[in-house]
């Protein structure tokens, strides 16, 4: 395998669903690239297509797919060209794993957590026998902070935070290159949430791994994000490093989103909000999809803006940043 500094690069990814009311353009021409050992956060409101993007990368598709195309390079190999069997054997859960939304409630109630966590190893022939697999489970439990005497417990005997750690251990056990975490802490209490974020921060330091964190919680995502992709109505509208995003984002939507995030230290007691609703992905508007809620709209916005890259590594889909203007 060639040495490559990008662990994942997605180019022009499309995922449309066929429904009885028409075609839903959940992911519509999304591109980004993630450096090895770096983590990124995909933020956006509900219904913007962020979960679909995660599913598209791991090819976890429902039956009603209308269009699924694009390029997806994992360590330089286009995994979109793989057939399903090759994808299952070589990519999913081997090189790229996922902790789906509400994963802690997806654990099998009648199998002990050790057996569940060992399963991916046995299915993918990554362990000689069950003994070896269970040995690996123990070290993975240490990494995520589950006490070893929980090995033979069943999911109902664990608290929410512990179950979430078990789900995380399950995705880590095959030593993948990256893990997609879909809202990993949104159902947890504050202290538990902080605990899980601590675990993720530590894993990032200790092992060679990238996280793709899908969330609507901007504040919490800052705990592990090196890069940030802001999604709106099926598009990535801005892709930049975390310092720019949490400091001074460019796209009008990102700016308004940051204004609506509550903080402890802010001086005044007013928060911003964005009037109106995100557009339906069934019939998205022709031009810029944010135009009707944007207070900087002008004549060009009736056409869809391309991705501009006014600065190295900072891409923004907005006419305000067209070449030679800013």
């Amino acid at each position, binding site marked *: 395998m060639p040495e490559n500094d990008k662990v994942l690069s997605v180019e022009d990814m499309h995922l449309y669903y066929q429904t009885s009311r028409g075609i839903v353009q959940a992911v519509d021409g999304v591109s980004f690239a993630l450096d090895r050992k770096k983590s990124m956060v995909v933020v956006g409101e509900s219904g913007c297509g962020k979960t679909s993007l995660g599913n598209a990368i791991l090819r976890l598709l429902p039956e009603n797919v209308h269009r699924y195309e694009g390029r997806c390079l994992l360590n330089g190999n286009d995994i979109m060209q793989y057939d399903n069997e090759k994808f299952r054997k070589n990519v999913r859960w081997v090189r790229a794993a996922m902790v789906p939304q509400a994963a802690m409630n997806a654990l099998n109630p009648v199998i002990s957590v050790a057996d569940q966590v060992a399963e991916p190893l046995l299915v993918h022939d990554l362990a000689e026998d069950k003994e070896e697999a269970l040995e690996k489970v123990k070290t993975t439990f240490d990494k995520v902070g589950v006490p070893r005497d929980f090995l033979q417990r069943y999911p109902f005997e664990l608290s929410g935070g512990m179950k979430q750690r078990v789900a995380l251990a399950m995705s880590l056990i095959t030593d993948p290159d990256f893990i997609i975490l879909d809202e990993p802490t949104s159902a947890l*209490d504050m202290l538990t*949430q902080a605990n899980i974020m601590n675990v993720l921060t530590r894993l990032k330091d200790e092992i060679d791994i990238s996280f793709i964190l899908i969330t609507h919680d901007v504040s919490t995502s*800052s705990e592990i994000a*090196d890069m940030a992709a802001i999604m709106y109505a099926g598009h990535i509208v801005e892709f930049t490093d975390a310092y720019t995003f949490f400091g001074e984002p460019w796209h009008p939507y990102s700016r308004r989103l940051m204004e609506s995030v509550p903080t*402890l230290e802010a001086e005044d*007691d007013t928060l911003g909000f964005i009037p109106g*609703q995100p557009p339906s992905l069934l019939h998205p508007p022709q031009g810029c999809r944010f135009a009707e809620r944007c207070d900087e709209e002008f004549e060009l916005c009736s056409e869809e803006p391309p991705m501009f890259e006014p600065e190295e590594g900072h891409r923004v889909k907005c006419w305000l940043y067209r070449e030679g203007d800013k």
Partner: protein
Amino acid sequence: MTAEDNRILVEARDLRTHFEIKKWGFLHQGYVKAVDGVNFTVDKGESISLVGESGCGKSSLAKTILGIHEPREGELIFDGQKIDYGNKEQMKRYQKMTGFVQQDPYGALPPFMSIRKIMEEPMIVNGISDRSQRLDRIKDVMHELKLTPVDDYLRKFPHMLSGGEQQRVVLARALVLNPKLIFADEPVSMLDASVRVEILELIEKIQAERDVAIIYITHDLSTVRYFSRRILVMYGGKLVEKSPVKDLLREPAHPYTRALLEAISEPDASNIDTYKDVPPGEPPSLLNPPAGCRFHPRCKHKIDGLCDEDVPPEFDVGEERKTACWLYKDEEDAEDVAV
């Protein structure tokens, strides 16, 4: 009764709500002490937040105050009158004066009822039999909540509305009987950040106009200061700190409150290099809560022989501020620990 007392709408005195656990359906096993000795007051037209983690008893407290659960001990005084949980007539009158805004608007609205039916239901139950009077009240409330044009909305069903609109319908339903007290259980946690603030501002406006008291239940300390002046922090069935929000955020008194504040992430890219200082362990079981202070097994300021034996009373730690923690037993000591 003095003029001062007249401002008080709700007063809880040593409220204890315990649920009995039975073995095989009849053998007494013990009590889950969901609410265990809670004292607080809410003024008329005040907004106050109740903060705590899941399982700390905050919903049980809400349900006790709304008259759904009967407390085992203690009393509740509403508008100068002691609430008698056994008296059905009085309870009905009392419950008419209280409203509840649920966390999940979609789950709280029956899918088979039109918005009009949903809004009419509480009035029918409470004996407002005149149709046109009901419709007038519905229209008034919906105008206030910007659910316009009202006639369009009245015909719709919950699934035809967006999350923000659904939450406004839930709020309208709670307001239609002109309550004096509303419990709002995480009213915006299911909504997206960009519409959240709109709803909060709407609630604030209505509260000022109608002089209704609101108790917000939340687990998110970072939003509390946007909608209430005072805050109650609950842990293991007890209130551990009562304070004006601004003072609490600046200088939390109880070690548990400090841990909660420490756990909050600010949207700051430099967080990536830092770890949070989280207390070890889990919240206590309310079936067998630890002796003494319920936070002592997780507390780094624990005083041996005191915190693990005696339940801390409430100490004054400032104007309108009280905390149940032995660290504040005399004020000189308090100086050292209040960081």
